[in-house]
């Protein structure tokens, strides 16, 4: 039985979290003794991008070049994945957790009559049944979940496994789909995307600012620091509520959940709702002028002091060390 991996792309570039999903599938196949790891890419994707899929652990890449799939049309993507699942005789579908991934996975769970677990944080344990560990209560706890269906779908949280980079080059096959027009009944009328930025949910380093930054005019130093680190920028909820920063940068329980290697929080108090969005970070650095700020309790490193002095110094020190 094969494992199918649903690959997400944006503007022809494959998402890093999807490559992680491929590596997860590779490790799973080794563990269960299952056969091939087959990746499915939809829409226009650059050739060298497809090569990375093999390096991440896929033994074959199926590519449907239908341009209508460039956008994340949920129904059409679900139909496409279901067709591939049947075509390759898959038992398991692996995908990266994301807003599109979730929506597609949910519909597939019904289409394929497959069990679905989201927010999976590590490889399953197989001693007694098929047991997956998933993150619940917005990262405040974990649940061991037993999957009882023969077909399974796992939506993987970022950093569940390390991305493999030493796999063999995988052959790419064109995969022909028959997509009903009804799948495209909803029309995407416009897309607004901030180009060139590191995507927040995918980022390995995140620099976030809170209300302590005083106003949007002071974000230049946050952006300088982020740029030096190749980081994405985030913010606390009030900051996006007042409109200092765009909504998609809001991190926390009711915003984006990030899982970077390094999270730097500047002028953020560390309310429990904010922490819920960052508690999967590997290392947390807090810069706050208040030594009593709750964020220090969740931090690995901290500096007590004025962000307006410290942040430019930090940027300079990082540049000096590069």
């Amino acid at each position: 039985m094969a494992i199918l991996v649903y690959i997400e792309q944006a503007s022809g570039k494959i998402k890093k979290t999807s490559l992680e999903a491929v590596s997860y599938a590779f490790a799973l196949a080794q563990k269960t003794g299952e056969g091939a790891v087959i990746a499915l890419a939809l829409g226009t994707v650059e050739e060298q991008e497809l090569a990375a899929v093999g390096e991440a652990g896929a033994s074959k890449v199926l590519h449907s070049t239908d341009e209508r799939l460039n956008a994340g049309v949920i129904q059409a993507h679900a139909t496409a994945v279901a067709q591939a699942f049947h075509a390759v005789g898959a038992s398991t579908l692996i995908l990266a957790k994301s807003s599109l991934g979730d929506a597609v996975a949910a519909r597939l769970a019904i289409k394929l009559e497959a069990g679905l677990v989201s927010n999976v944080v590590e490889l399953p344990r197989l001693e007694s049944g098929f047991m997956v560990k998933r993150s619940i209560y917005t990262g405040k706890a974990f649940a061991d979940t037993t999957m009882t269906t023969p077909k399974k779908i796992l939506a993987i949280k970022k950093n569940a496994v390390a991305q493999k980079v030493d796999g063999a080059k995988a052959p790419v096959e064109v995969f022909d789909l028959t997509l009903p027009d009804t799948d495209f009944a909803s029309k995407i009328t416009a897309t607004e995307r901030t180009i060139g930025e590191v995507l927040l949910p995918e980022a390995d380093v995140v620099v976030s600012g809170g209300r302590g930054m005083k106003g949007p005019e002071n974000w230049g130093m946050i952006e300088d620091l982020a740029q030096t680190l190749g980081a994405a920028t985030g913010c606390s909820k009030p900051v996006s509520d007042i409109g200092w920063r765009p909504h998609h940068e809001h991190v926390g329980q009711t915003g984006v959940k990030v899982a970077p290697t390094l999270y730097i929080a500047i002028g953020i108090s560390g309310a429990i709702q904010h922490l819920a969005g960052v508690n999967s970070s590997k290392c947390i650095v807090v810069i706050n002028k208040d030594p009593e700020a709750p964020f220090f309790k969740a931090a690995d490193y901290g500096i007590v002091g004025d962000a307006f002095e410290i942040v430019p110094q930090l940027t300079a020190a990082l540049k000096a060390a590069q």
Partner: protein
Amino acid sequence: MKILVCITHVPDTTSKIHFTDNNSKFDPTGVQFIIGPYDDYALARAVELRDQTGGSLTALNVGEVETEPTLRKALAIGADDAIRINSFPKDSFFVAKQIAHVAKEGGYDLILMGRESIDFNGGMVHGMVGELLGIPSFSPVMKLEVEGTTVKMAREIEGGKEHLEAQLPLIAGCQEPIAEWKIPNMRGIMSARTKPLVVVEPGSFATQAEASSYQLPPAKGTVKLVDKDQVAELVHLLKNEAKVL
């Protein structure tokens, strides 16, 4: 227009999470339960749409009797009636089957949910119900306007947003800034007591992925503070000690 809003009954966002019975059960001691924050956005938008277009607004929860105060709160905020499907929500598949079963009979034009529940955070139930009913589902939706049978939406995508047009009936998983949370007023609270809250028994649907035991994350060590005049020291630590640079 007939609107259905599906709401969860979840621990307040400031709750500390604990488990009992050898880590096999959630411990509700000292926990305050609320309408899920995303469901609260869905409900607020649903109230506005019902007020604009007329019709009816039903609030639905799959849960045991202790969720009734949460449903009453939804009535106080503006739902016309409520349905409780009397079962512990065992997994998202089970919940979706229950909701789809009731929704099919109700013949709703628009079903609003939260983008995700904040207990299991699956973000799955809307898609499953959509597929079960054979209608489209969209999430996370941050803007939703209804003009006749056309629905204009903005959906958040990573790093931006997407504007969409679709036809009723459909399902949307909502998030801010679709509407502002509504706080029940005195009249709402009074009228909520007499609005209908119907309890229906669950259909016998299977589960697929039930949780068997729970764990808390390992405790965090204490923070290492760096003096504000030694910023370069932080860079050194991140590079050589934490090895994250």
